[in-house]
């Protein structure tokens, strides 16, 4: 027989043990555990399969890109396709990992456009989203937490056990604390089994989780625990506001819908309406407009200048190589100037966009953080490395790679790099032409994604974690104050 025995201890622990036992032996536990365990295992299984598939695709794309370079004889014709490799944790906490463009064709200079978001290639997934651990915690376990807590007080009153507990000299704070702790244990302790099995599944499937990834996952689970504690405390408070369990059920379910489903989306819609952001398309259009304008002018200048170099009485005398070098130098100067101006425009527009985005995000997140579900989503994404910072990090690493590629091309091509203009090549018929040597793609610098450190992610998620810690305390305090006036009969 399962017993309440153990170390005895304060009343709240006795209530918590009884609550845990009551939950574990109840039929509703069997149902909630079966559903939760299945979904958690499914999340790990889908995640492992998804990761391995993405890894194969990623390696195939890299190999194909390298194959394409075979036979190329000029490093300036090389613009490698680089992509964000799949990360194990993004399969458990998707965040924005499926929404952002993960590939980019990088040239030695110029704008880098990322493409190839997973949702763009799989619109069905974009519509229905994926089943990941974050979803299971936020929606499914969140709902079960509400269902476990909604009758914590009024249910005991309706059953008649509340009177008996308090006739025995129990303190109200101990009762509430014990109920919340017991329910939290009843909800989460059994989930350690499917989570442990899921972790084992990851290992067996060969998903390369580094120690840091496990640490990140543990922190995500901790955030999930705080989120569930929040919903349990909230529903316990609701149960102390009313006398009938049916009313509490309706209120708790409404609160769940409002906080989990409505508030985060409403916050984003409101923020987008109140604080619009310049789109990337608009920036691209503005860039294209300026580019067309510059090109029109540069063409005329180019014609005059090239005629001056190549025409009669031109500089460089009759040495065609020297003349071509002069033309290419001019082209390079024009390209650089063009890129400088385009870059300036783009930087200025991007800065404006960034400022607008910051304002919009601040507003959206500020409003959304009323909802514990939003706090959990934001914290989990930060900790798993799939927050909005992922896109910024990818752009930063792509920019660094572009610099590296540009330097490499300049070293290989006599001070030139690909992108942003044209080049002229002159062929001098002076007998048997020397066949150009193909490049060796292995020499090309590889794009190596550096997983961001955990500390900045922890720092960014600290606010949400603090809120997730504060919410249960606030709701517990509210429940305690309400319960002081509760008619126990």
């Amino acid at each position: 027989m399962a017993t309440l025995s153990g170390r005895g201890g304060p009343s709240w622990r006795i209530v918590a043990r009884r609550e845990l036992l009551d939950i574990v032996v109840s039929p509703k536990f069997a149902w909630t555990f079966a559903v939760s365990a299945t979904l958690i295992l499914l999340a790990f299984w889908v995640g492992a399969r998804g990761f391995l598939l993405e890894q194969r695709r990623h390696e195939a794309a890299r190999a194909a890109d390298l194959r394409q370079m075979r036979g190329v004889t000029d490093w300036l014709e090389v613009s490698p396709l680089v992509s964000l490799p799949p990360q194990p944790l993004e399969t458990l906490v998707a965040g924005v990992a499926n929404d952002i463009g993960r590939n980019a064709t990088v040239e030695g200079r110029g704008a880098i456009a990322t493409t190839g978001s997973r949702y763009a290639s799989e619109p069905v997934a974009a519509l229905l989203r994926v089943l990941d651990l974050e979803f299971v915690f936020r929606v499914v376990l969140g709902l079960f937490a509400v269902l476990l807590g909604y009758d914590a007080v009024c249910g005991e009153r309706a059953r008649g056990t509340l009177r008996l507990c308090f006739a025995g000299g129990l303190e109200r704070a101990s009762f509430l604390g014990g109920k919340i702790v017991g329910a939290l244990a009843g909800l989460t302790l059994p989930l350690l089994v499917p989570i442990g099995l899921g972790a084992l599944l990851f290992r067996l499937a060969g998903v390369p989780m580094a120690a840091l990834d496990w640490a990140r996952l543990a922190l995500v689970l901790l955030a999930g625990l705080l989120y569930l504690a929040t919903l349990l405390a909230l529903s316990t408070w609701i149960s102390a506001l009313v006398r009938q369990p049916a009313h509490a059920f309706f209120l708790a379910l409404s609160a769940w819908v409002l906080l989990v489903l409505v508030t985060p989306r409403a916050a984003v819609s409101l923020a987008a309406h109140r604080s619009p952001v310049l789109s990337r398309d608009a920036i691209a259009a503005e860039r294209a407009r300026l580019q067309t304008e510059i090109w029109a002018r540069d063409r005329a200048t180019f014609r005059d200048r090239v005629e001056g170099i190549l025409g009669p009485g031109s500089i460089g005398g009759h040495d065609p190589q020297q003349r071509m070098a002069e033309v290419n130098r001019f082209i390079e100067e024009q390209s650089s100037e063009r890129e400088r101006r385009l870059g300036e425009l783009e930087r200025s527009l991007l800065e404006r966009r960034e400022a607008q985005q910051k304002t919009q995000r601040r507003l959206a997140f500020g409003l959304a953080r009323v909802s514990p579900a939003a706090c959990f989503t934001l914290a989990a994404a930060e900790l798993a490395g799939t927050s909005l910072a992922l896109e910024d990090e990818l752009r930063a690493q792509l920019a660094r790679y572009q610099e590296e590629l540009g330097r490499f091309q300049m070293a290989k091509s006599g001070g030139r790099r690909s992108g942003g203009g044209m080049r002229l090549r002159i062929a001098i018929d002076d007998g048997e032409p020397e066949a150009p040597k193909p490049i060796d793609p292995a020499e090309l610098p590889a794009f190596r994604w550096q997983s961001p450190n955990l500390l900045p992610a922890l720092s960014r998620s600290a606010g949400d974690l603090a809120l997730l810690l504060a919410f249960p305390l606030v709701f517990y305090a509210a429940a305690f104050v309400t319960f002081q006036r509760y008619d126990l009969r």
Partner: protein
Amino acid sequence: MTPTSPLLEAVALSKRYEDGLLAVDAVSFAVAPGEIYAMLGGNGAGKSTTIHLFLDLIRPTSGSARIAGVSVQEEPLRAKAEVAYVAENVELYGELTALQNVEFFARLAGHRPSAGELAAALRRVGLEDEAHRRRLKTFSKGMRQKTGLAVAILKGAPALILDEPTSGLDPRAAWELGRLLVGLRDEGRAILMSTHDVFRAKQLADRVGIMSRGRLVAEWTRAELLAQDLEELYLRWVEAPGAATGEASGGDGSSAGETARTEVA
């Protein structure tokens, strides 16, 4: 508190609800160790409210309830440590077994009974061993009532309060409950029970008080009731307490107030 001091004592206890209803009106009585006190009264007479005042489930408007000399209103936790309670409908935790239920409430009361003590308490109230590990939701009302009594026994409190303990029980279950109460009384416990059951009150109680419209309108000892028809007295007092008084004195003098102690000739 001396050994003869009452273990349960109401002193001019009153409760007026926010809607103006005076549910308990200056009720005074005392239950000594080794005594069963039965509060008789109809629905809405104030019996349950009086019990709830003793258990600190509601606060009195005036007056006080004392358990073992400790004011319930001033020191509720200390006072309630001295009393055990059995509700009209004992609704323990249905998903837990009888053993788990009694263990939980014993632990809440600060005890750590052994498995043997738990089983002994359940046996004492007449629950067979096979029932000890059954879930409470499979129990009949009588069995739940017995489990509730086992909870009360395990608490080991000197005072016991029962709200309509025989309500809805079959005659055998009611007889068994009565036998248990007498046994507990003989151990020196003070027992306060509210009931509609005139027969059981006369059979078990050492004193009977009649409540009507929030007031304790009459009170008799067992000796006084020997030659009386309690049912007739009850009906007379409940239907027309003023007319039936005949002669209402100030009681035993210790709790005059408005509570009348009626000596029946």
